[in-house]
């Protein structure tokens, strides 16, 4: 077997029994791997109407054919399940070293079924698979869990994917963390794992990944590495990390501030890539096989002591990785906090407690707006820590409270949508399909409007990142013209990209899809072309859409909050602009070959080979 291992591991958590299955050749070919293949299994095996927390919900970890090879940034794995935050199919991607380790153990996919009767963790060492008691790990943070497992199993090269207290407590935006600071972050995959009573999956793999045509593979890999080496995108990622994006979005009036009430943040320069590099950066850190190394390992500044300190003295010297652009925005600009130490600390708490900093920050921002409106009052809060915009102590303390569902944290843990509804102000929820927006204001980047509204897993920036054309002069960022067409095509590209196991960032660092289609072909022995990849992307996107339609989603869910559609910013470069979703959405449906209710037509499904699934 080349590229793929061709095997999947299926574990019934209720009984601890596991078995290895062959993955059908046509499924591998038609979905490549990772996201596509896991989507297909989920669609095939599960009723989309089940509750995300029900034992019937399946949790799938999936690698791609390039995961574990030396192709640049071949580190990724996907977690596919029905999301706790959204109720839609979710596809959360993570890097680090865990995905390749699963591949080295000999599996493309890991499918987890049912729920364990008591807290457990799964131990995989090549063929050896055992569900073990995790009573002693339950309640522990992510860092400690990983260290404990490595020590007690006595395997230094062990890789661990785990949930923190947030996942155990079913915080709806809990992550699955691996290698301490890498997260399959969005849509609450960690809460699903927590509902299954599964604390961690510890993996050690000693096998190899073979490629079909080694010479062609290496030639294509080195062509890609050469293209990336001096590319400005790669250099910027390496030097400044993802937080360099703050300057760009702020300049376009597209950096959502104080729960999308403003489009520019006055303290942006405190949080940007330069600030992190110059004042906090210890070193760059790479995921497996990564030639970019955008990861930031940061130290807290001397001023951090003035904030409430929690009890992690061992890790105190180095805060760990982050913040990334999204985390710096959500916990910083979106809550109005311009203090890098507070953001670092809250971000690091999110990592240790196992929560998505995007949804955490955005939910805090929504709560702060509720506090502004008087819907949340001081008597619901902890004494002396108002949940007000610009308050650095609030983001630290209430992040922790959310993970443990203490006090108001119990409401925050339900996400911004449920929070807004609970306090009678659903309009404070800034998101789509129940998932909070990431760090791009669609009033600054019009295309993000249709990208957010149509994304299958709820609002997401990784499916069609329109600033790629809207910030570079290729398209006007303020008109809806041409955006739907671009977004449809880009969604196909990123979906195929996710299926291969390479990191999405290679696309912005000089290694777009075109450069690794031949790598995938040489690895798998399947003569893939770019057209094949786009078709696979479209097939997978439609399959996810079918899942969501069967789960009960309709055209009405392809929506944006009123604030984006009706209330323009008053100042800045994006002043006066609102999102014209009503113009973009019909074009989007037409481009997709869907009817105007957003349903794939029978002709489209037949064209994609999905006719039998509708």
């Amino acid at each position, binding site marked *: 077997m080349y590229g793929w291992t061709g095997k999947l591991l299926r574990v019934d958590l209720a009984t601890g029994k596991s078995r290895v299955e062959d993955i059908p050749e046509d499924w591998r070919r038609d979905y490549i791997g990772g996201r596509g293949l896991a989507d297909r299994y989920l669609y095939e095996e599960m009723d989309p109407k089940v509750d995300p927390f029900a034992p019937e919900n399946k949790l799938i970890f999936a690698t791609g054919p390039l995961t*574990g*090879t*030396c192709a640049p940034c071949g580190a990724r794995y996907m977690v596919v399940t029905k999301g706790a935050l959204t109720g839609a199919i979710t596809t959360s991607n993570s890097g680090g*070293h865990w995905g390749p380790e699963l591949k*080295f153990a000999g599996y493309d996919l890991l499918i987890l079924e049912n729920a364990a009767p008591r807290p457990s963790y799964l131990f995989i060492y090549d063929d050896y698979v055992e569900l073990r008691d995790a009573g002693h790990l339950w309640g522990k943070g992510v860092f400690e869990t990983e260290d404990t497992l490595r020590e007690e199993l006595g395997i230094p*090269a062990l890789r661990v994917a785990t949930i923190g207290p947030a996942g155990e407590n079913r915080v709806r935006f809990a992550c699955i963390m691996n290698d*301490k600071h890498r997260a399959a972050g969005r849509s609450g995959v960690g809460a699903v794992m927590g509902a299954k009573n599964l604390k961690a999956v510890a993996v050690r*793999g*000693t*096998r*190899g*990944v*073979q*490629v079909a045509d*080694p010479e062609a593979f290496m030639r294509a890999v080195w062509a890609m*590495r050469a293209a990336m*080496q001096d590319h400005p995108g790669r250099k910027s990622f390496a030097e400044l990390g993802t937080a360099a994006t703050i300057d760009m979005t702020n300049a376009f009036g597209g950096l959502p501030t104080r729960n999308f009430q403003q489009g520019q943040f006055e303290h942006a320069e405190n949080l940007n890539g330069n600030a992190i590099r110059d004042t906090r950066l*210890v*070193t*760059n*850190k*790479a*995921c*497996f*096989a*990564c*030639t970019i*190394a955008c*990861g930031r*390992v940061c130290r807290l500044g001397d001023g951090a002591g003035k904030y409430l300190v929690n009890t992690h003295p*061992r*890790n105190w*010297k*180095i805060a760990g990785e982050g913040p990334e652009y999204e985390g710096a925005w959500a916990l910083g600009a979106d809550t109005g906090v311009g203090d890098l130490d507070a953001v670092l600390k809250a971000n690091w708490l999110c990592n240790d407690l196992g929560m998505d900093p995007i949804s955490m920050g955005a939910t805090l921002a929504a709560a702060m707006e509720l506090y502004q409106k008087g819907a949340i009052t001081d008597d619901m809060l902890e004494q002396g820590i108002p949940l007000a915009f610009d308050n650095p102590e609030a983001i630290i303390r209430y992040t922790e409270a959310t993970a443990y569902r203490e006090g108001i944290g119990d409401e925050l843990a339900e996400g911004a949508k449920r929070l807004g509804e609970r306090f009678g102000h659903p309009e404070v929820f800034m998101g789509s399909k129940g998932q909070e927006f990431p760090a791009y204001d669609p009033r600054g980047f019009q295309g993000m409007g249709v990208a957010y509204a149509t994304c299958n897993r709820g609002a997401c920036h990784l499916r069609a990142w329109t600033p790629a054309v809207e910030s570079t002069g290729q398209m006007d960022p303020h008109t809806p013209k041409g955006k739907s067409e671009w977004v449809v095509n880009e969604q196909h590209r990123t979906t195929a990209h996710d299926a291969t196991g390479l990191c999405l960032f290679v696309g912005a660092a000089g290694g777009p899809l075109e450069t690794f289609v031949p790598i995938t072909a040489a690895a798998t022995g399947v003569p893939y072309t770019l057209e094949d990849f786009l078709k696979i992307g479209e097939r997978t996107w439609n399959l996810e859409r079918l899942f969501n339609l069967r789960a009960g989603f309709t055209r009405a869910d392809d929506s944006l909050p009123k604030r984006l559609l009706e209330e323009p910013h008053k100042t800045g470069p994006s002043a006066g602009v609102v999102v014209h979703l009503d113009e973009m959405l019909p074009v989007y449906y037409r481009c997709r070959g869907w009817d105007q209710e957003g349903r794939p037509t029978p002709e489209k499904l037949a064209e994609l080979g999905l006719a039998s699934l509708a």
Partner: protein
Amino acid sequence: MTQMLVIVPDRCTGCMQCELACGWVQTGQFQPSQSLIRVNIFDEEASYAPYTCLQCDEAWCMTVCPVNAIGVDAANGAKVVDQRLCIGCHLCTIACPFGTMFTLPQNDKAAKCNLCGGQPACVVSCPTDAIQYREAEQCGEWFRDWGRRVHERYLEETSAPA
């Protein structure tokens, strides 16, 4: 003139490309578990360092081997294992002060870095030049500088009030 591997931990990002390259040379697959260079990750110190055989002048693995299975590559000075002679006694793994002698799980025989016959794959694969293959006499300079900094940090930390 002899060349040697120089490792600059400050440049390492922990990406494992060297392990992939070495595993590839050993097995023709991407198999880091078979790599003869290992990346050590010290999370607490935010430090990553690839580590492999230093090709000691006075090589204890060679000295201790009861069947003379370890010899010297005349072209580049690398100490190499002749697996046909190795009897799998593991003495070399005990003798090596640096932990860079390995035994292979498939045949229980010794394996170590042989500098790929003078063109080390790990050097080619490293994206940040953290592993270099340089003339031996130029290698000390970097080490002196690094050694001084480590020493200073040690003094600083040990003299800090508790």
